[in-house]
């Protein structure tokens, strides 16, 4: 079943869900902090090759300055990877992923849901980020084939001067 199918089928459940234990509920409000190193020109070059997207804003100081920016811009989605944890291979899960912070719901399986971003100001080479993430809600849903819980995290990213630069909301569908 696709995420779309689950969303179409999903209806808010009344009362407690078997999926949503008190232990899982205790995660609501959990706060995590993530930090990046300063973004480098090489980070940007690697991301441009990987995404095969060479917009003039990302490659030309002149083009960016002509549009009113003070330097070339960092591609907007690159920031997500600057805060991805670098863990030892021995700490990876068998599928090669880093351990996901995920509340204990159901069989502890899940798929990614919706992602939402607000880019308050563009990032530049040299910027570094501190992300403050909060588990905002756990919402039980009841589908025709399967019950699940929509877990929503909200994160605010601040630059090296403490200014808010990005807001992010992402959901996980847990079952």
């Amino acid at each position: 079943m696709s995420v779309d199918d689950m969303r179409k089928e999903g209806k808010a459940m009344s009362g407690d869900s078997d999926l949503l234990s008190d232990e899982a509920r205790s995660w609501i409000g959990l706060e995590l902090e993530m930090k990046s190193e300063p973004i480098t020109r090489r980070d940007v070059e690697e991301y441009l090759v990987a995404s095969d997207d060479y917009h003039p804003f990302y490659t030309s100081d002149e083009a960016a300055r002509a549009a009113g920016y003070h330097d070339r811009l960092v591609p907007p989605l690159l920031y997500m990877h600057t805060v991805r944890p670098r863990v030892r291979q021995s700490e990876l899960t068998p599928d090669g992923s880093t351990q996901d912070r995920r509340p204990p719901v159901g069989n502890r399986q899940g798929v990614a849901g919706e992602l939402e971003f607000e880019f308050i100001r563009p990032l530049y080479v040299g910027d570094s980020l501190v992300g403050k993430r909060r588990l905002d809600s756990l919402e039980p849903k009841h589908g025709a084939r399967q019950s699940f819980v929509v877990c929503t995290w909200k994160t605010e990213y601040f630059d090296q001067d403490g200014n808010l630069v990005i807001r992010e909301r992402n959901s996980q569908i847990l079952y």
Partner: protein
Amino acid sequence: VTSDDMVAGMSLPLLRKAPNEASIFFYSAATWNGHRIHYDREYARSEGHQDMVLQGTLQGNWLVELVQSWLGVRGRVIRLKYRNVRTAYVNQDFTVKGTITKVSGAPTAEGRATAEFEVVVEGPDGITTRGEIVAELL
């Protein structure tokens, strides 16, 4: 492109993508993504996939690329919302499509007009990613 050219209902030029093994390798490497379904074909099949899986965030990037490349230097993407709705695989052909849904003279905090877009990534079996974008016009 100027704001005069932007009318709700207008379609953006299509962006075509054909990611191969190198594409998904470089994207996993640049984004420090060790998930084996993106580079280990045998493992991906053991999880029930038909082939190596294209990264969801790469498709999110395509949505931004579609709108930002059309805007050129006349605007900047300031909001993005998307979800991956169907698994996408390596060596498939994809088309990224977008439509203007609203052009607003109501200024942002910086006093700029905005344009809104509905965007999708479509693969051989249907839509794999759906999203919405807001751009500020410079």
